[in-house]
Structures are given as C-alpha cells and as structure tokens.
C-alpha cells in the first residue's frame, strides 16, 4: 500500500482545479460542475483516511457528501433554469439583481 500522502495530494489537486474553475468560469453550469469536483476531491480524502484508519465512518460521510452533492445539483440547476427563463443567459456575472 502506498503512503496516504499520494491520496492527499491527488485530492488537493482536484480541489484546487475545482476552485480555479469556480473562480474563472462565467457559465453557471460549469461553475456548478466545478463545485461537484470540489466535493469529489473531499470524498477522496475521506475514503483514503477511512481505509488507512480501518474505520468505515469516513465512507459514511462520503456517502452523505454524495447525497448533498445531488441535492445541491438539483437545486442549483433549478435556480439556473428559473434564471435562464427570465434572463436568457447563464453567465454568472449577469446575475446582478437580487430580484427579477
């Protein structure tokens, strides 16, 4: 078995790529996908530690995170569709009103 550091660095790389995506992209859908990537990176950490400590709790939390990601995607896309219907755009920096 490899040292756990490998997993941590992989997870870190994915997390930062996701974060960079959130910051740089204007398309809300891709921003949402980047958030999914971040959550996924966290999952790698949890599962790796769960394996190395021999405690299944980490995997339970990873499951919760997947559930959370599903909820987030559903709500996020719902908001996006509602927004798209009103403004006909999916660019994040055009979401500049509190109410429309």
């Amino acid at each position, binding site marked *: 078995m490899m040292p756990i550091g490998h997993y941590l660095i992989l997870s870190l790389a994915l997390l930062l790529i996701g974060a960079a995506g959130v910051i740089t992209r204007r398309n809300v859908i891709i921003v949402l996908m980047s958030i999914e990537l971040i959550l996924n990176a966290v999952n790698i950490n949890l599962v790796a530690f769960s394996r190395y400590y021999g405690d299944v709790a980490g995997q339970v939390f990873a499951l919760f995170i997947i559930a959370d990601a599903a909820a987030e995607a559903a709500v996020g896309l719902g908001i996006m*569709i509602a927004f*798209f*219907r*009103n403004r*006909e*755009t999916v660019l994040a920096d055009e979401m500049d009103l509190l109410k429309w």
Partner: protein
Amino acid sequence: MTNTLHDRTLPKADTILGADELVINMGPQHPSTHGVLRVKLKLDGERVIGSECVIGYLHRGVEKIAENRSYQQFAPYVDRMDYVSAVSNGLGYCEAVEKLLMAEAPPRARVIRTILTELQRIASHLLWLGTHALDIGALTPLFYCMREREEILKIFEKYCGARLTTHAFRIGGLQYEAYDTLEKDVERFCKSFEARIQEYSDLLTSNSIWIGRTRNVGLLNAADCIALGASGPVLRASGVKWDLRKATPYAAYDQYKFEIPVGTNGDTYDRYLVRIEEMRQSRLICLQAIENIPAGPIMARVGKVLKPPPGEVYHAIEGPKGILGYYIVSDGGTQPYRVRIRPPSFINLQALDKMIRGHLVTDVVAIIGTLDIVLGEVDR
C-alpha cells in the same frame, strides 16, 4: 432542417423550460409520412404548436394529361392516383364518362364492378390497417394484412392480369368476362376473412396500449369535418352518417343490404373501428353480390371512338378513402376539355393541422396514418 442546433443565438424563453421553439421537418423522406408528404412541425418540446404541409413531390399533372388523351386512353392514368385502390378510381372515372355519354353499363357489368370495387375497398383498408399499426409500433399486423391483401390481388390478377394498377373497367362496362371461378374465389376469400378480421381485433381492438395511443388522439368533430370537406371514414368516425353508396347509389349498390358504421368521438380509435367494420360490411356486400350475378352482356354500346356531346358532368363515388369525384367538361371532341378530380386524400389532409395541434410528435404519426392518405392522389 431549417436551422442547426449548435450555432444559434440564444432563444426567446416563451416555452416550457425556456427551451425555444423547434422546427422539425417531417418528410419527405420519413418512414411514416406514407410516401413523400412533408410536414413542417413547429414544436414546443415534443408538443406540436403549428404545422404546415408541403405537398407536390409526386405531382405528375394527371389532370393536364387528361386533356391530351382520348377518354379511353386516360382511364389507366386514374389508376395511378390512388395506386392502392386503382379499381375504385377506375370505377369513378368510367361511370363519370358514361354519365357524360348518357350510356349505362349493363347489369352484369355493374355487379362485377361492385364485387371488384368492394374487394378493392377491403384491400385498401387492409393496407391502411397494416401501415397504421406499424406507425403506432405494432409490427405484426402488417404481415397479416398483406397476407389477406395478397388473396384479393390474386383475384384481380386472375381477372385482368394486373395486380396493382388494374385498369379493370372500361367505359361502358367491362373488357373481360368474369373468369370461371370468380364467385368461388371471392366466396372462399370472404369465408376465411371473417376469422382473419377477428384476429386483428384480438391483436388491437382491446389492447390497452392501442387504445391509449388512439383514444382522444386527432379529435375532429362533425362540424369541423363538414367544414373541411372531409369525407369517408374520417367523416363517419365523427358521427356523420354519409356514404355515397347509400346516398346516391351507383354501380349495383342499391341491390344490397349493408350498414354504414359511424363513430361517436371522431378520434383515431373510432376511425380504426369504422374502417374495421367497413371491411366487414364490404365482405357482406361481396357475399350478397356473388349469390346472383345476372347474365347478359358486359359492355354497353358506346362505340369505338368516344365523342360525348358538349357539356359537363360531375360524378362522385365512395372510394375507400372518401368521396372521389370526377368533374369532366366535354367540348364535343374526342378528348376531354377539362378533367378535375376531387381526391379524398387531398381534402382529408387539410384536417391534419387541426388534428395535430397540441399533440405530441408521436401522435402526428398516428394521425397521418389515421387519415389514410395516398400521396399519389394528393399530388396527382
């Protein structure tokens, strides 16, 4: 394809989910537009919000051709309009010219004409049933229908040598005497057909998927039918009891007893039931007709060169698809001055837009099928 998907400006958000209107081109190369019909559909998602028929891909100028042919020479051309019910087309044309000549076919000819025309009606309805079922996704009825249709075509072949574009009748009567076993063949067919038609009913009539696909689909009420000039099973399924065989009897129909089936709802399912019942009635007519075929000549005396007196005539018959009318103007010469044909498919097709609005794309296929159009007749 009016526009591609990938490069378009962002659409107006006036449809479900903010998706834009989709214009889809159904046909002329589409498996279920029954030939070369082209329908431009405006869709909201999968729901039709507008449509436009584009026809003429099979236009051959049949009416114009008539002006350059003698009356007899034009007779085979009408077979090629509604090529799946050539016999009926021929009957209408021959009777129209006879009317113009003020001649009448002898009784024997009229009875044989009736038998063949009713067989043709069954054949046409069978082809409709098979393809309609195929459109709705039932694969098997097509082959059963073709099997029965084949028997009818064999009778035609024995009678006149042709199967599809038969040119079975001549102006003034028949060219050929009935062959020896005609009655027997027709009787055998009619005897077996009752059980066969029950088979289709077993497969479709009470099938809940079939009912689900056809009930309340393509509604057309009686008033709309009449306003649009729809005729045939389409009209009768809406509850209007109008059949030229009863209303203005021609050939030998006044001698036979039969019912005119009518629907109540005017939906696709009713049209299906009406046509199935019409096949049964046609079978009864055939059975009655072969009981007693009068003896006598088969051709009236009309002369070799037809020169009808100047004048005009309109004669309509109840074709398998609806009222098939011929309007012929004669200037006293050997060729018609003008022939105008009222094709049932063309006029029934007008109802398409009204019927498909608000339905799904899937239903469009079912509705085109239920109209029972033949593009050769629509475009002429």
